[in-house]
């Protein structure tokens, strides 16, 4: 079994997790910028964090010969402070040239506020200006449906956004069709208590097809499982899907999306 972990917050995981992922067949891990568990007090805090995910984490993963890539942004949870957001966005261009930066993410909404919307629009402008892929975080629980609609409206109304270069993550049964119907990629996140479980993720693939979907663990310092993608493979095996089918979902699909960034050099689709 081989797979890509397209969304893992490895700064919050132990080195043992890297080892377990590689043993389970992980071929690359991608780390979107996110909340650190506390609100950072200045743009300098983000500069340090961007150095951590562009320099230190790739070196930590390299001990296990695991390619590590990342995405950059100020996450939606810290996007309520517009002045801080502007300062952080100004930092991002100097990091975009780093060899493992795949694009802008995970941007999006947290509590669906006006300021979060403004910061989302600023990020989308930045991504379009620098021809970057976009990874979108959709809100939690009761906020997800409304937030997904607001986010997709922002993306669809921007003339420079190409939907096939955008992945909208954390979809569930009530948001996946809207995302796919608008031409975006959809990410299914496997969490123990929220988002999706492996059986529900496989249900969504059965119903919506496997063309523009990936699965991820979104493992972080909260209740999450860095091996949830290979566990979803076991669910597909138990239902009787072929190894080729499973490989397309958990390996070939993420490779196909991520290879739109020429810096992503893992494998080849097909």
């Amino acid at each position, binding site marked *: 079994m081989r797979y890509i972990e397209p969304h893992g917050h490895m700064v919050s995981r132990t080195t043992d997790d890297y080892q377990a992922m590689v043993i389970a067949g992980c071929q690359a891990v991608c780390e979107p910028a996110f909340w650190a568990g506390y609100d950072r007090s200045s743009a300098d805090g983000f500069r340090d964090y961007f150095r951590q995910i562009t320099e230190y984490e790739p070196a930590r993963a390299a001990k296990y010969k695991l390619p590590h890539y990342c995405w950059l942004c100020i996450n939606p949870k810290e996007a309520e402070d517009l002045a801080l957001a502007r300062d952080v966005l100004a930092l991002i261009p100097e990091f975009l040239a780093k060899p493992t930066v795949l694009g802008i993410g995970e941007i999006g909404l947290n509590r*669906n506020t006006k300021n979060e919307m403004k910061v989302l629009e600023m990020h989308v402008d930045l991504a379009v200006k620098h021809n970057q892929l976009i990874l979108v975080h959709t809100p939690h629980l*009761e*906020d997800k*449906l409304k937030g997904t609609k607001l986010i997709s409206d922002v993306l669809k109304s921007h003339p420079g956004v190409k939907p096939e270069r955008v992945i909208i993550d954390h979809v569930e049964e009530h948001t996946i069709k809207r995302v796919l119907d608008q031409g975006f990629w959809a990410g299914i996140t496997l969490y123990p208590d929220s988002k999706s479980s492996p059986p529900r993720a496989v249900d969504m693939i059965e119903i919506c097809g496997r063309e523009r979907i990936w699965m991820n663990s979104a493992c972080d310092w909260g209740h999450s499982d860095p091996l949830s993608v290979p566990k979803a493979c076991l669910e597909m095996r138990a239902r*009787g899907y072929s190894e080729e089918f499973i490989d397309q979902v958990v390996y070939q699909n993420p490779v196909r999306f991520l290879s739109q960034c020429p810096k992503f050099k893992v494998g080849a689709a097909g």
Partner: protein
Amino acid sequence: MSSAAPSPGTPTVLPADRQKIVDLGFVPVRAKLIEVAAFLDRVERYGVASDYRCVAMRAALSALADGKPERARRILESFSDPTTEPDAVSTGKAAYGAYRPPGA
């Protein structure tokens, strides 16, 4: 529902052994259903069954037994914020799991 008449939204490509899907899912899902029942008993016993989240959960349950498809989607929608405009400011708090109607 007869296996010869799949519900709308059923994909065209499924593994051949369809009976297996019951064998795989029944016991784990049975356990979750009993957890729901015990939770609803518990909040009544503690006198907090009128909490808006418990009200939302009881309302969502009607979708389980109405015989219509897409139960997961409909239950997720029933917990969702139905408003469409961005909020003026953040509460600074995490989401709760169910939309809180004004006054609830």
